[in-house]
């Protein structure tokens, strides 16, 4: 009796397993194709960093059904943590040979200050706050943990208040815009519209990462991180936790009636997505050699949603594929006609919603099913039908055991 149940599901994880492996193989492709093209390879490193963020978007939007238009916030926290760390290192290097990173303020903090050499010079108060980031390991931890914590707190408040759907999306966007304005306003602390740039190379465990001089190392760092995140998310969505998330998307009232604290599940998923965004931001800052206000712009966060919509929400591979394809399209189009990109982005979104609601991966899956005439659901029923419990449906209605058992 247990045999047909333990048999792997035709529409279940096993179908996706090969896709995940295929996706990991794709990561090997850019270094081969763009062997001598440092520029393209460093671009791909950026795309894959965005893919880490897109995984989080997929987790909360594709799987749980919560649309966030403010993932750029968590991305930016990660990006600024790492950029500030590298900036402190650069400031120390600029100041002279033996200056310790964290003691010398970055240039932008001194815009309204006296010259550093002046006897009445006072180090900016902000320096004390960011000094611990001088250690890149601390900065990387902060880049992941701080966004996770922020997202957790944000989720605790909004989900306990039962804020859902479009209201949730609007609040995430409002918060994003508030921080955007704050960053612009507090130039002495954040670098304002200019951002944090002119960064030192990141040196981690004795390896130096630079998007031009050491592009291959950087690429493998980002690709490796993405692979780990992809695997982690795959475990996550196939765990009971992941099934509860899908159940919340389908019917939250039912999940509540089953005794699950859905607010906590939503919060946890949102926190994980925040952490992924922070990690993506950290890697992106290294690959882009910049942490700027544009990560906090509303269009950036919307673009992150479009990545997932185009690739295919509800499939992890779709998120990664969308991140790479849409970003590549963005680069190509921006090179040719930059003013057209927002229009193309909008068309992509509308097109995917109208024509391919489940994105490229979903569309391909449906096409594959049609071509091979294997509708897995029908196949499963046909195969397992007669033998499973001895009650053969004869009149088209599902059979019900004559004597009720197990009650």
């Amino acid at each position, binding site marked *: 009796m247990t045999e047909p149940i333990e048999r792997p599901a035709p529409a*279940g994880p096993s179908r996706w397993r090969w896709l995940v492996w295929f996706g990991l193989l794709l990561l090997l492709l850019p270094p081969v194709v763009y062997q001598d093209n440092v520029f393209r390879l460093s671009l791909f490193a950026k795309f894959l960093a965005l893919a880490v963020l897109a995984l989080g978007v997929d987790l909360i939007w594709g799987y749980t059904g919560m649309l966030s238009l403010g993932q750029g916030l968590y991305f930016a926290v990660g990006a600024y943590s790492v950029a500030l760390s590298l900036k402190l290192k650069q400031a120390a290097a600029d100041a002279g040979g033996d200056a310790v990173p964290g003691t010398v303020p970055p240039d932008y903090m001194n815009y309204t200050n006296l010259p550093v050499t002046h006897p009445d010079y006072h180090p900016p108060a902000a320096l004390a706050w960011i000094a611990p980031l001088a250690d890149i390991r601390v900065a990387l931890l902060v880049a992941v943990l701080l966004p996770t914590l922020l997202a957790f707190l944000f989720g605790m408040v909004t989900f306990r208040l039962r804020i859902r759907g479009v209201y949730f999306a609007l609040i995430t966007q409002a918060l994003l815009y508030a921080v955007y304005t704050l960053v612009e306003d507090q130039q002495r602390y954040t670098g304002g519209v200019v951002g944090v740039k002119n960064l030192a190379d990141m040196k981690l465990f004795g390896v130096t990462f630079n998007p031009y001089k050491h592009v291959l190392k950087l690429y493998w760092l980002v690709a490796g991180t993405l692979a780990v995140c992809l695997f982690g998310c795959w475990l996550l969505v196939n*765990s009971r*936790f992941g099934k509860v998330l899908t159940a919340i998307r389908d019917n939250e009232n*039912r999940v509540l*009636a*089953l005794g*699950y604290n859905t607010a906590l599940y939503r919060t946890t998923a949102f926190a994980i997505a925040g952490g992924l965004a922070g990690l993506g931001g950290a890697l992106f800052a290294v690959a882009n050699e910049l942490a700027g206000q544009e990560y906090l712009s509303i269009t950036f966060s919307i673009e992150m949603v479009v990545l997932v919509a185009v690739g295919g929400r509800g499939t992890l591979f779709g998120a990664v594929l969308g991140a790479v394809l849409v970003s590549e399209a963005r680069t190509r189009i921006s090179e040719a006609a930059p003013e057209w990109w927002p229009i193309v982005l909008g068309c992509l979104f509308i097109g995917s919603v109208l024509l391919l609601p489940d994105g490229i991966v979903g569309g391909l899956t449906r096409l594959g099913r049609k071509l091979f005439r294997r509708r897995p659901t029908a196949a499963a029923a046909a195969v397992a039908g007669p033998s*499973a419990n001895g009650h053969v449906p004869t009149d088209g209605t599902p059979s019900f055991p004559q004597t009720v*058992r197990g009650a």
Partner: protein
Amino acid sequence: MGDPNEILRVDNVTVRFGGFKALDGLNFSMRAGELRVVIGPNGAGKTTLLDVITGKVRPSSGSVTFKGRSLAGLPEQRVAQLGIGRKFQTPNVFKSLTVLENLRLSVRSPRRVLAALLLPQAAVARRRVEEILETIGLTAKAHVEAGILSHGEKQWLELGMVMAQDPELFLIDEPVAGMTPRESERTGELLLALSRRHALLVIEHDMTFVRQIASTITVLDEGKTLCEGSVEEVQNDPRVIEVYLGQDREADAANPQPVCVVR
């Protein structure tokens, strides 16, 4: 208060939606292991009664007690964890999960986030899921997405999900809506079998079905208990006939109208 067998007590509960009273000082109680059918005309407050018990709707006044414990202020998931399971009026299953996954989420297992993330499901729970699949006749469709099941199968799956929760009190809202007579009869058998170990509160309109399963019926009208008793008692109660048919008859008597006037 005194009855030690009492599992559920709804005491003087009023629910207001704006100016409308969905429940109006309702009193209601059930003993452990009882199968109770609640009937009443549209808008009598049947589904609101279930909403109040499960914590989905907060009563404006009055109290709900389950096994001697007040449910006031408890969130829905806590009420469910205490042992109250609910089957909704329209089939509420997780359409993009398979039948098996639907049941695995429902079966008794730790509900905490960390447990769901890290712990594999206990073997006992897995066996229980297989038993229930058998009981509801969906073993062959264990790996089918619940969204493509037929209406009757969805109803059974949801019943199976509530069974998997193993609650002490089942709240079942219109279990046979949209079922064929044969499906409906089998559902009745299932509920009767369940009632040997659990208390069941069933809301249903289909009187054939009610006669099949009911021992005691409570009739609600305008948010109050109109009467309680056996099927015969209730069917012969003039007040019941009045609320189901009366208003029309009174109106007809006062102002007789031809059904159709041809000029």
